[in-house]
Each structure stands twice: as structure tokens, then as C-alpha cells.
């Protein structure tokens, strides 16, 4: 039974991937990609990765899909022009041959995977009590591979700087995106008043549950960022000025606290990002609480894009 479900998911996934790649126009391709992202979340459930499924549905399908849909709106009218630059039939055939060759090589690799299976799970499980958290994924993210998570938070900040640097000179330091004008008594404004209180509670719940259950700061930050985006799109509040000092401080606060805790470990436990015995759980909570606002700000501002208006007078 379960194999039948997996086979059905696989067939749908492959069909959607092909459809997305060959779709008639960019809008259809992006619509296909959003559905593909949701289906991918099902794949993660079948692969026993509930945490990954939550992240995929929230960020891979949701945020990336919304970002690409916004881009389709901006790119309208440029599609016909590039259609003439399409690869020739020969080049397409070459691409197909290359794609099949890469697929075949990877499949060969999959079929000769080593036995016994290499795994780090037996190392993680006995070490979990020392971290004070119950969800092994959270344990890996914030204790055993905390350096990766620190670098990831840094990459997000650098990506945001990269996006902002695409601002035209006149808009540098200004506000991103359009100023949304909607009917203040309309249904969108209504939703933007009703949903955020619920969304904020759910976001904080997902954040806190991440210590012992599937969930955590990335999924929570996505929910909170989505609530902020909703308020902006309903015209209830404007996007912040990117030159705002408080905003910039909030963006770098998370990684800075993370680095500070790492240096503390260097001094108190003998190595960068090591936690002194007994203090692991409180320090993990400190890092997570500091990272959450940073992630919310960065995810929402990445969605907003570069500043476009209201630069220096």
C-alpha cells in the first residue's frame, strides 16, 4: 500500500517537473513549480523528514513560489523577445543527451551505494541528552553542526545585502517594492487584521515546539514573515526604509549573538561554539531567540526586493 502511494507521488513529481520545464509560458511554469514544491513536501514525509517537509512547504514551495510569481509579473512582455533566442534543435538534442547521461551516471551511483550504510545517527542519539533538546534535527542544527547554521545565517544577511545593492542610485536606502493601495474596508485588509494575531501565535508555537518536535526557527520565521508581508500587501503598513538603523541592527543581531556565544565557548569550554556543560540548553535558546527576528526580517526583505523609491532627498 505504502509503495503504491510512493510510486504515485513519484510519477506525479516527475510529470510535474517535465511539465514545468516545457510549459508554454513562464506563468504556467511557476504555477507548476509551486505545486511541485507542495508535492516535494509529501516526498519528505515519505522519507521521514517532517522537519524538512515543513521547511520545503514553507520556503521551497511557498516563499520561492511567491517570489517567482512576483517576478513573472515584472517580466511580462520580455518573453516573446527571448523566444527567438531559443536553442536550436541540435542544441536541444545535445542538452537532452547530456541530461540523460547525467541522470544515468547518478543512477549508477545510487545502485552501487555502499553497504553497510554510513550513518551518523548512532553518534547523535547518545549525545542528545547533553544538548537538552529532544528533536535530533534541532540538536544537529544548534549543537553538533552549529557552525553550518551560523554560516547559513550569515549567508542570508549577505544575500540581503546583495539584493539591496541592485537598487538604483536614486532609491538607495529607500523603501522596497510598491506602496500597496487597497480598499481599507476590503476583504484583504480585513484578512490582514484578523490573520496576523493567529499567525503570530502559531509562529511562536512552531518556534518553541522545535526543541522537542518537528518545527523550529526557520519554519516559524517563514510564518511570521508571511504575516508581515500580508500586512504590507493589504496596505496597512509600508515596507521599512532600508537605511533605518534599528532595522539594520535587527538584521545583524542574530548572527552577532551567535558569534558571541561561539567566542564564549572558546573561553569557557575550550573551542569555538562549544557549550559549557549544563549550559547547552539555555545557550541554544539564547541563539534561537536572537536568530528568529533576524530570520523574519531577512526572509521578508528578500521577498520585498531591492529599494525602489524614497531614496535620499
Amino acid at each position, binding site marked *: 500500500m505504502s509503495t503504491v502511494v510512493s510510486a504515485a507521488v513519484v510519477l506525479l513529481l516527475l510529470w510535474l517537473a517535465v511539465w514545468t520545464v516545457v510549459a508554454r509560458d513562464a506563468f504556467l511554469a511557476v504555477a507548476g513549480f509551486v505545486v511541485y514544491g507542495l508535492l516535494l513536501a509529501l516526498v519528505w514525509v515519505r522519507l521521514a523528514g517532517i522537519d524538512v517537509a515543513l521547511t520545503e512547504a514553507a520556503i521551497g514551495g511557498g516563499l520561492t513560489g511567491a517570489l517567482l510569481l512576483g517576478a513573472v509579473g515584472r517580466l511580462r512582455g520580455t518573453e516573446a523577445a527571448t523566444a527567438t533566442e531559443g536553442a536550436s534543435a541540435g542544441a536541444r538534442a545535445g542538452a537532452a543527451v547530456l541530461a540523460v547521461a547525467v541522470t544515468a551516471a547518478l543512477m549508477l551511483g545510487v545502485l552501487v551505494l555502499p553497504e553497510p550504510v554510513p550513518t551518523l545517527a548512532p553518534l547523535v542519539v547518545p549525545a542528545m541528552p547533553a544538548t537538552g533538546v529532544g528533536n535530533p534535527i534541532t540538536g544537529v542544527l544548534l549543537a553538533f553542526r552549529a557552525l553550518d547554521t551560523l554560516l547559513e545565517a550569515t549567508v542570508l544577511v549577505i544575500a540581503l545585502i546583495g539584493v539591496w545593492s541592485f537598487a538604483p542610485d536614486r532609491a538607495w536606502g529607500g523603501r522596497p517594492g510598491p506602496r500597496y493601495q487597497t480598499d481599507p474596508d476590503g*476583504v484583504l485588509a*480585513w*484578512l490582514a487584521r*484578523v*490573520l496576523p494575531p493567529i499567525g503570530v501565535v502559531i509562529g511562536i508555537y512552531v518556534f518553541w515546539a522545535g526543541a522537542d518536535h518537528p518545527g523550529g526557527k526557520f519554519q516559524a520565521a517563514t510564518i511570521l514573515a508571511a504575516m508581515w508581508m500580508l500586512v504590507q500587501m493589504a496596505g496597512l503598513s509600508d515596507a521599512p526604509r532600508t537605511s533605518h538603523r534599528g532595522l539594520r541592527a535587527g538584521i545583524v543581531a542574530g548572527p552577532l549573538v551567535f558569534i558571541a556565544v561561539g567566542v564564549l565557548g572558546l573561553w569557557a569550554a575550550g573551542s569555538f561554539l562549544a557549550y559549557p556543560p549544563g549550559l547547552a540548553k539555555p545557550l541554544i535558546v539564547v541563539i534561537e531567540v536572537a536568530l528568529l527576528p533576524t530570520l523574519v526580517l531577512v526572509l521578508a526583505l528578500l521577498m520585498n526586493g531591492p529599494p525602489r523609491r524614497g531614496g535620499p532627498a
Partner: protein
Amino acid sequence: MSALLDGFSVVAVIAGAFFYLAGTVGLLRFPDAYTRLHALTKADNLGLALVVAGLLPQMDGLLAAGKLVLVWLLVLLSSAVVSQLIARSARRREARP
């Protein structure tokens, strides 16, 4: 008792899946945005309600069941608002040409 509840779950989830199928057929076959929305919102809301009702007896504990009901209410809220927005934007596009 539990066999009865399991039977109820199976029937309700299958009925829910049927309504989803009907809604999707409507989405693919109906001619314009309004009728497509009609098919989607009517049939999918009922389908989701049936699936949630069918899964309720399978949850362990009131808290888990409460979360499931919350999911259902939130989906109802968002789908109602989104279908309104889509219909309005379709109407505006019609008025403009």
C-alpha cells in the same frame, strides 16, 4: 466501537476525496474564472471538512484534534478570502479591456 470509528473515517475520507476530485474536474472543465472558483470553493471546502471529520477519531488526544480543527478553520478563512480576491481581479480585468 473502534471498528465503527475506523469505518466512519474510511467513508468520510473517501467521500472527501470524491469532492476534491469533483472540484478539480470543475476547475479543469468550466469555462471562466467565476464558475471555476465556484467549483473549487464549494467542492473543496466540503471535501476538506469531510477529510478533517474523518481524521478526527484517529487523532490521539483532544489537543491534536483541536489542531486539526484549527487547520480546517484557517484553510476555510484563507480560501474564502483568496477566492474573493481572484473574483474581484477577474471582474476588474473584464471591466477594463
